[in-house]
């Protein structure tokens, strides 16, 4: 057992209101520089929809992630031999057109325009060339376009549905959409790292954060097609790749990452989990329908003395093990099993988990009352506006059982709380639902609390990062006195 610690996240999709506050918080801190202007390390997209970059889930186009044939794990986009040839031109690299051309407005014109009969306008200009441009796309261009034939119908996840199910999703009275906020998943088996020819991309041993060493990155770009989530970005100005850093400078000072901190819907949870690194290769190579369960089994119980001892032997600090005992991620993913990885079929073992959203219920109107259309208490999960297969294509690696389990439990918790507080549902029914959903009353109570009443400290359980020790290992601490903490001593620039 090779026990390591990993910062791991949960996004509760039922709570996301699609406000994009997270994206703005991130952009203001990290990606407002030239060359990063088009990047959204955190982005929020509407599902069904094509997302950002356009149709990023279409791996026929981008060739992201791993594929497994006869137990052999291979990157789809590259390999050692292919690197030699692809290094001059990557056949699957997305270009700026797949994202969007960043723009600003010619605000000066509002002040400088000569006097005339019309109000002056501020025309859009490209942030790359400064030329006048016609805006054709943006990072959330299809916001709220749940039923649109241009965006929603081109969602790559729909490929898994049969024509009836598709028709169902686009019937006017059933239209629905939800938001999918995305950051880098800080995967356990990151495709980006395995594709990086320079060895610049790496996973931090202590907390599992995946980073690009900017001084070692040479702009070979192999990581960009390799990441199945398109969370690697190419800085077109400096010629280096960049990615979400999980705000590690904030984490190291005990603060939640900016997107977590600012989240209006309070959908985000962050905590450390312990996992067995020895089993990564084995789990990543399992048949697709076993992936979700196997990835869950990689996560270890920090209260188990054997795990804690193995962690200690491996240099995981006691304070980190303690923190893992309070990790909200552990509860959502491992105890309650209601948070699932996004597109686990790409075998990167993503460590950001999503609580799948409850689609709006189907109801019918009799006279003046609106009531459920069926006697079966869980009917609206299988007859939800969005077919369960659609959710399973995203959160179940095609295995709808996992998604159904998570949704049933959520629904049972709702009914249980409704029986308690509103009282229009009898407790016997609520109890039956809990039983059928594999949930105890205590568990329901805990889920309810962590979902609805959670405080800042409960949502973000950040272990001490012990940077002081790291610095002592690498250099004389006195030499760091009054030095700049992190980042460049020289400013990043393009070429010489």
């Amino acid at each position, binding site marked *: 057992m090779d026990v390591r610690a990993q910062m791991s996240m949960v996004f509760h999709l039922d709570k996301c209101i699609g406000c994009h506050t997270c994206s703005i918080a991130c952009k203001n801190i990290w990606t407002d520089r030239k060359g990063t202007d088009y990047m959204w390390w955190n982005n929020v997209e509407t599902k069904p929809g094509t997302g950002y970059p356009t149709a990023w889930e279409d791996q026929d186009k981008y060739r992201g992630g791993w594929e497994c044939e006869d137990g052999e794990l291979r990157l789809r986009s590259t390999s050692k031999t292919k690197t030699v040839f692809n290094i001059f031109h990557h056949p699957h690299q997305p270009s700026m057109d797949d994202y969007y051309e960043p723009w600003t407005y010619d605000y000066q014109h509002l002040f400088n325009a000569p006097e005339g009969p019309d109000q002056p306008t501020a025309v859009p200009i490209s942030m790359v060339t400064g030329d006048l441009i016609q805006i054709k796309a943006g990072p959330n261009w299809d916001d709220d376009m749940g039923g649109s034939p241009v965006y929603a119908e081109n969602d790559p996840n729909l490929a898994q549905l049969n024509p009836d199910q598709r028709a169902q999703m686009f019937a006017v009275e059933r239209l629905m959409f939800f938001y999918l906020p995305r950051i880098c998943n800080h995967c356990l088996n990151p495709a980006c790292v395995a594709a990086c020819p320079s060895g610049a991309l790496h996973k931090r041993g202590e907390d599992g954060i995946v980073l690009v060493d900017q001084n070692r990155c*040479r702009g070979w770009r192999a990581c960009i097609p390799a990441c199945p989530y398109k969370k690697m970005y190419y800085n077109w100005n400096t010629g280096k790749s960049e990615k979400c850093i999980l705000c590690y400078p904030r984490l190291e000072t005990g603060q939640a990452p900016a997107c977590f901190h600012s989240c209006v819907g309070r959908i985000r949870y962050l905590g450390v989990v312990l996992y067995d690194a020895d089993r990564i290769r084995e789990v990543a190579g399992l048949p697709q329908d076993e992936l979700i369960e196997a990835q869950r089994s990689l996560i270890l119980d920090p209260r188990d003395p054997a795990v804690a001892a193995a962690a200690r032997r491996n240099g995981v600090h006691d304070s980190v093990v303690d923190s893992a005992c309070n990790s909200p991620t552990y509860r959502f993913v491992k105890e309650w099993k209601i948070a699932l990885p996004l597109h686990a079929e790409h075998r990167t073992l993503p460590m950001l988990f999503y609580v799948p959203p409850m689609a709006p219920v189907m109801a019918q109107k009799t006279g003046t009352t609106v009531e459920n259309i069926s006697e079966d208490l869980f009917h609206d999960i299988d007859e939800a506006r969005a077919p369960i297969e659609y959710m399973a294509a995203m959160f179940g690696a095609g295995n709808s059982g996992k998604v159904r389990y998570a949704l049933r439990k959520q629904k049972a918790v709702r009914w249980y709380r409704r029986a308690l507080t509103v009282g229009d549902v009898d407790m016997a029914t609520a109890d039956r639902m809990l039983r059928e959903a594999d949930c105890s009353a205590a568990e329901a109570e805990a889920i309810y609390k962590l979902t609805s009443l959670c405080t800042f400290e409960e949502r973000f359980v950040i272990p001490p990062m012990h940077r002081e020790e790291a610095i002592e290992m690498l250099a004389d601490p006195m030499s760091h006195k009054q030095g700049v903490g992190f980042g460049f001593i020289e400013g990043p620039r393009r070429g010489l």
Partner: protein
Amino acid sequence: MNNTYFNALFFIGLPYVSVFTFFLMTIVRYRTHGFTYSSLSSQFLENRQHFWALMPFHYGILTVLGMHILAFLVPRQVAWWSSVPLRLWIMEIGMLAAGLLTLVGLVAAMVRRRANHKIAVVTTASDWVILALLLIQVLTGLGVAMMHPWGSSWFALAVTPYLYSVATLNPNLAVVSVMPWMVKWHVINAFLVIGFFPFTRLVHILVAPNPYLWRRPQVVRWYRRPAAAGR
């Protein structure tokens, strides 16, 4: 200009200045501005023309460069190969084709840098200087191949001894001073490229990622372990 002066300046002075600059400045740049070592790829900004320009260019120039290096390192074997007419023909035609491929790619890359505004804004003066130098290099190279063919057999006897003499700090101009002007130009321009190399994006050649071929797929860095252990 007096011929002796000319020869001394361009075949003794220039090589040493260039090679010295090359080594000094690539090392200094790596140590002080290591961040600037990048391919500075512009594929992200423009994808299609990139393929048609950069693929022929890289394959062409790597072939030609590889053969030049081979002729420098093992001149006798190269001369031996070219001692049979058929093999000589294969060599000459192959190299000419590679040279033309380079030319096509290079010109396409230059056109792309001018015509596409997005690419133009990420093109610096040093890019243009090195593109121009490379263009001259390729054109003179092709000129030599056309005007003075069978280079693969005479190179070993004419140019390699001169390069060796420079490398062993005992420059011998006897062979090179009688070379046709096209060959001279090619050699002089090559030294200009070498001297200017550290100030351009060409430095990405020096950081070509060969360890990738041998390393394990995943990379883990430990900040709290004394030696950075892998996984």
